[in-house]
């Protein structure tokens, strides 16, 4: 098989660490649930966000003993089912959600932290069972994934329903920082 020089150059560039290999973002809509999923694969890592509309979020937490006030506060905080998966990174990755960024209308902030929510639930006097369910249903605040490892959990941006934003996810492999971005993501209404 023969390769043209520019093809070889492209392949060589693609093999360099830091080059956004397979970084194309995809978007799909599920007519059955009415939700949209945004997904990208970059540096051997898959990042995926699926809208969780307010009604299913309300149902989930109401069913776990949350009072209406708490249910409403969370369900309207722009909730996403989030997946980060190490498919083929050059080693074990680690991340902290505090390092991720949500960019919307010129403002940049990290996703709402699990700790911030837990403080609210404690202040509201939620039962231990409700707090445990909440804590472990969230996307992990920090985690390490060897190749093949992944988690799926809920993540909130704190933006109003219908907001548009970019999510920048960051992780490190062997001390080197990588980024994956999902652009023009929309909070469910």
């Amino acid at each position, binding site marked *: 098989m023969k390769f043209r020089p520019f093809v070889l150059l492209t392949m060589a560039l693609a093999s360099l660490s830091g080059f956004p290999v397979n970084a194309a973002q995809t978007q*799909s809509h*599920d007519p*059955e*649930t009415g*939700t949209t*999923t945004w*997904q990208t694969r970059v540096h051997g890592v*898959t990042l*995926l966000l*699926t809208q*969780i*509309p307010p*009604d*299913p*979020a*309300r*149902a*989930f937490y*109401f*069913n*776990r003993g949350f009072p*209406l006030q708490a*249910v409403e506060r969370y369900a309207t905080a722009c909730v996403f*089912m989030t*997946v980060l*998966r190490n498919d083929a990174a050059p080693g074990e990755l680690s991340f902290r959600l505090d390092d991720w960024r949500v960019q919307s209308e010129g403002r940049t902030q990290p996703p709402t932290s699990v700790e911030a929510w837990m403080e609210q639930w404690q202040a509201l006097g939620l039962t*231990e*069972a409700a707090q*445990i*369910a909440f*804590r*472990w*249903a969230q*996307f*992990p605040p*920090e*985690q*390490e*994934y*060897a*190749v*093949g*490892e*992944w*988690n*799926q*959990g*809920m993540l909130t941006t704190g933006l109003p329903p219908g907001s548009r934003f970019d999510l920048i996810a960051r992780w490190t492999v062997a001390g080197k920082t990588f980024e994956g971005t999902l652009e023009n993501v929309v909070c469910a209404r």
Partner: protein
Amino acid sequence: MSFVRAESRMKQGLFTFMLACMAAFPVAVAVAAADLPPLTQGLTQIAEPKPAPALRLVDLDGREHDLADLKGKLVVVNFWATWCPPCRREMPSLESLRTRLDKHGLVVLAVDVGEDADTVFSFSGQLEPAPNFPLLLDQDSKAMQRWKVKGLPTTFVIDPQGRVIYRAVGGREFDSPAMIEALLALTPNH
């Protein structure tokens, strides 16, 4: 009672009823059709195996199970919850794994986090195949914390000497040929 207050109470009651009805379907439904990652078919080897943390919990019938009593067996410890979508996806494959390898000395313990016996029992009845391994209750999540689990599901493989030799963060296809072969080689009676 004023009409406004009565109407407000009626609305609140209706809202509560609607939420109760919606609670019948989990949030997983809302994302069920999403392009979810496939269940992984491999395990992550622990570079320096260490003795497993203590694990002594009751099952759905109130019977106590102690990991320390399972020395000499290959034990798969799976932390999960009924509301966790990848946990639900992988659970039937754990039973399939147990069916194939129990005669070789493999034992599965599934530790449910933060839920009561009724909830877990109700869910397990929906599974096909139904789990025939102990479903343990870690209602205060203390065991999960002791095992330093950061997300669900997380699974550990404990060798016959009681050491943690493999881990799996995220959903697995435990009955894939590769997994069966790898775990069979670790069983005491293979």
